[in-house]
């Protein structure tokens, strides 16, 4: 009886591996590539012990601790300690994300799509699919741990020995393993894959924050977060294996709970009530702009929060910037000192431009949503009603404008917030605001270009991304790679003044705004003339 629950698990394992034959290698290779490239760069970036010590001095501020975990081995900040401290947590998060996606794909998504029903109509055990999924995921996480572990060891970098490297890999695998079990539980609770993913990613975010709090106040709160076990290993310094065994135990406990829940429930059910949706629409939905906002609401909120956090994390490094620049040769190439300004002040415009370009992504997404709706055949719903092309198009443009303001605002506040906490003489809020909002004309131009492209054809909208990528390369890396000046002048971001080192260039801003308006009108003209595909 018992073993019939697991009938044909082995065959399903092979089947799942076959289905995932591209996805799994891509994830493993991606995480591996990320780890290797950082490991390879670190020794060159900080060549001497003095350089590393100057970085170590910057690692004890609360913002850094909140982001990457408590520093350890700072007295002798070896490349290994540096790598483990700054990279291990993020890599473990990547493994957790991989596990969340793969588990949900094989548990709830397959069930929702009716594939489990088909499988279960064969002489296959009731717990065979969940067992097979766990076996595959365990295999993937163990493989990831071993490949990274041995891979780092053979690079023969000073201070990164075999034991430490294996522990480094194991900590990453442990992160993936715990989230495999946790996600499997969430997959039992909800009735659809989307909600299961939502719960899992919320848990991921929640546990990251819990660890951040625990690491800052050192109350032991971090041990209630899986990520506390990842950073608790103190790889390459103390090499503590105990957290790995604890994490494995926690993962197994979660797995057992998921197995139990799976064994007592019917197919296609969940333990959380599905919750009925609205029977009638809220009044705020019933307009083109209301619909457009509703469809983008989640993304809008996430991006605003993301820009705020980005602002905080960049702001967190401002306090120790001066010593950092003096000690690290590579960084000196990025900035040409200007008389009368601190290096931090000179660095601010570069931070702002990078963030402004990041913030352009959700803004462009707002416009390109119109093209996406058309490609998915949903624009036709709207245009078969009494809604004009102008009205629907400008709903998207309007939201993009609002989004631009919010993104710049969120990043400026985040940056100011962190800068005020870590700098001895913090920037004025107004300085950061002027610097951030100086980028508004550039964002307007990007919006107008996407409007023009979508206006010509839904297919062309995505070309705007190439232009943004170009801007990023020439503006961010332009100084470092010594590109000629005209290359950055082909990007709207190349015309933005370097506040506070330069003063605001109002004529240029007004000119850019006028050009953006003209391009938008032209795009609108084309959009009104063309066929709507569907």
């Amino acid at each position, binding site marked *: 009886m018992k073993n019939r629950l697991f009938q044909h698990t082995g065959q399903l394992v092979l089947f799942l591996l076959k289905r995932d034959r591209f996805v799994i290698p891509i994830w493993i290779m991606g995480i591996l590539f990320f780890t290797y490239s950082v490991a390879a760069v670190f020794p060159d970036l900080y060549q001497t012990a003095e350089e590393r010590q100057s970085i170590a001095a910057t690692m004890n501020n609360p913002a850094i601790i909140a982001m990457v975990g408590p520093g350890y081995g700072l007295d002798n900040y070896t490349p290994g300690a540096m790598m483990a401290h700054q990279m291990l947590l993020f890599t473990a998060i990547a493994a957790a994300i991989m596990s969340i996606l793969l588990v949900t794909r094989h548990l709830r998504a397959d069930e929702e799509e009716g594939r489990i029903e088909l499988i279960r109509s064969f002489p296959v055990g009731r717990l065979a699919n969940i067992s097979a999924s766990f076996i595959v995921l365990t295999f993937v996480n163990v493989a990831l741990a071993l490949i990274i572990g041995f891979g780092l060891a053979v690079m023969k970098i000073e201070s990164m020995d075999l034991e430490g490297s294996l522990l480094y890999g194991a900590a990453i695998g442990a992160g993936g393993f715990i989230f495999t079990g946790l996600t499997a539980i969430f997959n039992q609770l909800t009735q659809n894959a989307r909600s299961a993913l939502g719960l899992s990613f919320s848990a991921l975010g929640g546990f990251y924050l819990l660890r951040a709090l625990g690491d800052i106040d050192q109350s032991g709160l971090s041990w209630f977060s899986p990520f506390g076990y990842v950073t608790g290993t103190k790889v390459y310094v103390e090499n503590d294996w105990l957290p790995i065994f604890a994490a494995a135990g926690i993962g197994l406990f979660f797995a057992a709970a998921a197995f139990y829940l799976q064994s007592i429930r019917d197919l296609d059910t969940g333990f959380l009530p599905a919750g*009925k949706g609205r029977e009638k629409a809220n009044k705020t939905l*019933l307009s083109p702009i209301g619909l457009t906002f509703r469809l983008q609401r989640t993304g809008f909120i996430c991006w605003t929060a993301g820009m705020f956090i980005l602002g905080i994390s960049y702001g967190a490094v401002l306090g120790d910037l001066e010593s950092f620049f003096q000690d690290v040769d590579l960084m000196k190439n990025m900035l040409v000192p200007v008389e009368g300004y601190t290096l931090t002040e000179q660095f601010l415009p570069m931070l702002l431009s990078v963030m402004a370009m990041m913030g352009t992504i959700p803004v462009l997404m707002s416009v390109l949503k119109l093209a996406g709706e058309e490609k998915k055949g949903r624009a036709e719903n709207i245009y078969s009603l009494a809604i004009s092309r102008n009205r629907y198009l400008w709903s998207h443009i309007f939201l993009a404008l609002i989004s631009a303001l919010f993104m710049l605002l969120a990043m400026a506040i985040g940056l100011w917030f962190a800068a005020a906490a870590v700098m001895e003489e913090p920037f004025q809020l107004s300085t950061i605001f002027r610097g951030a909002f100086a980028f508004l004309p550039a964002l307007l131009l990007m919006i107008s270009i996407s409007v023009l492209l979508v206006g010509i054809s839904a297919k062309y909208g995505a070309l705007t991304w190439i232009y943004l990528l170009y801007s990023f390369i020439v503006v961010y890396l332009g100084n470092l790679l010594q590109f000629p000046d005209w290359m950055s002048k082909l990007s709207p971001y190349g015309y933005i003044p370097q506040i506070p080192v330069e003063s605001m260039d109002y004529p240029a801003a007004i000119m850019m705004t006028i050009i953006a308006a003209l391009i938008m009108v032209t795009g609108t003209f084309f959009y009104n003339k063309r066929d709507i595909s569907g």
Partner: protein
Amino acid sequence: MAVVETRNLTKKFGTFSALSGVDLSVDKGEVYGFIGPNGAGKSTTIRILLGLLKASSGDAAIFGMDAWRDAVEIHKRLAYVPGDVNLWPNLTGGEVIDLFLKLRGSEKNSKRDEMIERFQLDPTKKCRTYSKGNRQKVALVSAFSAQADLYILDEPTSGLDPLMEKVFQECVMDVKEAGGSVILSSHILSEVEKLCDRVGIIREGTMIETGTLKELRHLTRTSLLVETAEKMGDLEMLKGVHGSEWKGNIVQFQADSEEIGSIMEYVSRFGVIRIESAPPTLEDLFMRHYETQPSQPRGK
């Protein structure tokens, strides 16, 4: 005056002619069946009527207004159900119905709940969980809740079960009684036969036949099975007899509708024991067109 009128409607996609010179007219209170194989140009015609596509040449008018230029004004009195209903996965069916009603401009929707009831739709579910049939129901409920003067229905029942198809047919009849006009593009020929006053057949971008079902009957063949006491002579000699198959004294064949009188006269001489006939269907009519008019290569 015609509710819908197109004259010499032509649409080119690059060098490919999707429509060449389509003339079509629908009168007030008329249910117009629009039939043709996939890719014949039904949806292209409908999308021009909706102002989604711009005609390369020719005119398309609805309520006497230009289908492209006056689209917004026209759509206040028009309801459309696409064949492939694409909805927003994270909105509920009820939200989408309300949205459609509101964006068409109709404030009062007294028929909304009645229609949801008739089509047995659960409006509290998210659209991502709806089957194709349920998505179609959302579009049908929002269309028939509206007091429109023209309904454009593009293969609206392809995902519905027979019970729901019947509800749909009742709704179309209600519209007709209330004086509304309907363009019904369909593959389900029994549905067209049951509902439509006039039928237009489109093929490779050209209207090849228009008329009432009665007028089109001359194109159809009746399928006959006859058993006679004496063996008949060579039936194929007669005008209008096709594909005869013998089994002893039983013969099965197709007869052109306009020749049926003379065929019967001949057959009756041999002492008819049994006679079975199947009425002409649009399907036959459809097939016949393919036999008689070889397809011309289009485009270029």
